[in-house]
């Protein structure tokens, strides 16, 4: 018996000379600027380059208003942007009054030739980020970005098989759908018409509050889709009966829905009963209770513990008396030795009653760092610890 050992293929061989030289040079330069890295310094000159130390960012190219309280923000993403499929969303970190807040928005332009991406934002009354983006964001400002996510996307066209679709949207729920439509019809109009048979049912408060109203109506006039507009001020809220009446072949159509939770719940129940296919996109998956005093503290990291507490005890004390090993320091809010990342939940500063909230998908992916020694639970909280 004999064994033969295959010579390592080219790909398995150690890194060739130039690459090793590059990494060697890189670690030399990093050592020359420690405790920073070369990337930290390059960020000050070229924040959009690949491998930026601050992570993926984008620069606002333009802010164009769609309606009185909605605007489309076109962004040049950093070189590490991996692209997206129309219908997907992106998490955006925006500095509002100096504080970085994260929100999720659907991408409203399909992959563009100039590489720019866009989000369309409706200013919600009292919404810190949406008001900021619509009213005060200006070209040149930077945004933090995460990679595109989400599976609210169309199935790719199949040859000889025209897909029948029903798109149901309400309010700013139109945003992922406009991304899909723009992508379809901006490339090859004839090909898109042959591939998809689309009915779009869109509900909005008033006719002039329809985001992308003119664009949608133009698609309908050109015969690219059948548009059914409903305005709640005159027609009332959209019901499943309305849908059945307006779309007789509803059962034959693959459905996509995006809008407020009430609408999506109704549709899911309706489609569930009939065992029909429905894809939904929810903008606010988690609602954090911020009025509660106390709650359950969950330590989701290596501590793996959960502790009941009331609203008057610092989280640090509550966790320690339950036997959780906690980082701590001055115990009076000045040394930052007790800071832990809160992934979700709400806490109240015991010194002045200020509320800090972490909502998955809305705040930073790693959570919001809070001082456990001066914060009490204002609802259930989850920590990475």
């Amino acid at each position, binding site marked *: 018996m004999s064994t033969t050992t295959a010579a390592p293929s080219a790909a398995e061989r150690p890194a060739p000379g130039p690459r090793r030289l590059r990494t060697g040079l890189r670690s*030399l330069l990093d*050592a*020359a*600027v*420690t*405790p*920073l890295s070369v990337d*930290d*310094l390059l960020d*000050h000159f070229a924040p959009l380059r690949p491998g930026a*130390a*601050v992570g993926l960012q984008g620069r606002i190219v333009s802010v164009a208003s769609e309606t009185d309280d909605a605007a489309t923000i076109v962004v040049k993403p950093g070189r590490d942007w991996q692209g997206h499929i129309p219908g997907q969303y992106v998490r955006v970190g925006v*500095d509002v*009054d*100096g*504080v*970085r*807040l994260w929100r999720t928005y659907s991408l409203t332009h399909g992959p563009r030739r100039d590489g720019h991406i866009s989000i369309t934002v409706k200013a919600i009354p009292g919404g810190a980020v949406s008001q900021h983006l619509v009213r005060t964001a200006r070209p040149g400002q930077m945004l933090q970005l995460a990679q595109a996510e989400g599976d609210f996307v169309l199935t790719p066209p199949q040859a000889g098989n025209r897909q029948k679709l029903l798109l149901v949207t309400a309010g700013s729920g139109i945003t992922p759908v406009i991304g899909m439509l723009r992508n379809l019809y901006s490339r090859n109009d004839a090909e898109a018409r042959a591939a998809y048979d689309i009915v779009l049912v869109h509900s909005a408060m008033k006719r002039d509050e329809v985001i992308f109203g003119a664009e949608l109506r133009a698609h309908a006039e050109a015969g690219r889709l059948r548009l059914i507009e409903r305005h709640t001020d005159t027609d009332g809220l959209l019901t499943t009966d309305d849908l059945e009446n307006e779309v007789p072949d509803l059962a034959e159509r693959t459905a996509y829905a995006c809008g407020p939770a009430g609408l999506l719940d109704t549709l899911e129940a309706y489609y569930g009963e009939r065992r029909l296919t429905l894809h939904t996109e929810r903008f606010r998956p988690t609602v954090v209770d911020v009025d509660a005093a106390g709650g359950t503290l969950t330590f989701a990291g290596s501590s793996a513990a959960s502790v009941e507490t009331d609203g008057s005890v610092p989280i640090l004390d509550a966790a320690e008396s339950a036997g959780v090993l906690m980082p701590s*320091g*001055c115990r*009076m*809010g*000045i*040394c*930052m*030795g007790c*800071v832990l990342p809160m992934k979700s939940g709400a806490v109240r500063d015991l*010194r*002045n009653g*200020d509320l800090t909230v972490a909502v998955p998908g809305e705040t*930073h992916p*790693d959570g*919001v*760092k809070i*001082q456990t020694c001066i914060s009490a639970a204002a609802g259930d909280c989850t920590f990475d610890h």
Partner: protein
Amino acid sequence: MTTITNKAQNPTAHLSPEDVEALGAELDAIRQSVLEARGEKDAAYIRRMVDLQRKLELGSRAVLLVSAFPPAWVLGTAGLSVAKILENMEIGHNVMHGQWDWMRDPKIHSSTWEWDNASTAEGWKHSHNEVHHTYTNIVGKDNDLGYGIMRVDEEQRWYPMYLAQPLWNFINACFFEYGIAAYDLELGKNLAKPKDKRPESFKKAAKATLRKIRKQATKDYVINPALAAPTGSFLPALAANFTANVIRNLWSHSVIMCGHFPEGVETFELKSIPEKETRGEWYLRQMLGSANISGSKLMHIMTGNLSHQIEHHLFPDLPSSRYAEVAPQVRAIFEKYGLNYHSAPLPQQVGSAWHRVVRLSFPNGWLATTNAKNLPTQLKMLYALATADRRTRRVIQLRLEREARKIEAAKAA
């Protein structure tokens, strides 16, 4: 200085417990007003400061690549010194205090910042933020008072070795970053223990500190000089880095001495601190235990706004750029409650702090009673204090203190 509870006139004697809590509430109100006002402008300030500092450091290091050329050496060394001072004082110290945590920017956050200094961020946050800021000026508890190697209070017993303390203080100033690293580690206390009795936490921290020191030294004394070698500037660049580090050390040591050392700043006895100190009592201790440096805006920035030491100790987590604005309100509270707001220009505060170091290097009352004429007898007395038996020492000591009191009374009259 004598701890306030051992003074003939306790400067807080006129305040009732209600006064102290009312004073605390007024300071809380100032803090709250800044929390409500801070926003985009503050964020822009610290980002601009970080940007400026990094470009200044990068530019200075570039100039030092040709530092064999003397004007380049001077320019690069000056720039690098300023950059290191800004990094440590206005940026590093304040970021590690969590003054900018509210921005939720992971790059400018107390939990992620590492600074251009021999001590590790981790060690510094413990010894400085936690110990010094919580137990400010409590003799025996606050290591910043003399770093455990100096006599900073009349109540500490005098030994002959303290005669050398002005010299130690100067050497500590030149190599301050290593001094800080050493007392972050409580090096003296831990090295005194047998090797196998030293706590695990110390061994870990010591390893991290040695690693940090190696990286810092490699940067300043190997790699940057080596990069300058092609222009024949290896040695000049090395000297420039060394000089910049010493200048930064001397400067930060001076600023820190001004914060708690000048004559007239109060110290506290551990046993006089209540088991559960109220917020008002804690505020009061910070007010009496700190001193400000008056001066220009540039001076404030170069000290990392530690020139507003009083405001910093009252509100260690407020953005440093806001201290100047709240200082008049804080001062008004001092006046309202009849307390001494200790503020003077830099040379005066440095002089005062050094005076205290020198004065306390001698037995109590010795320096005050010494003049050119009686120097020989005074020296004899000093020799006796160092060598004579206990009884003689006590007699001499009492005589010195009596004389000193007489001189003080004559001055006052």
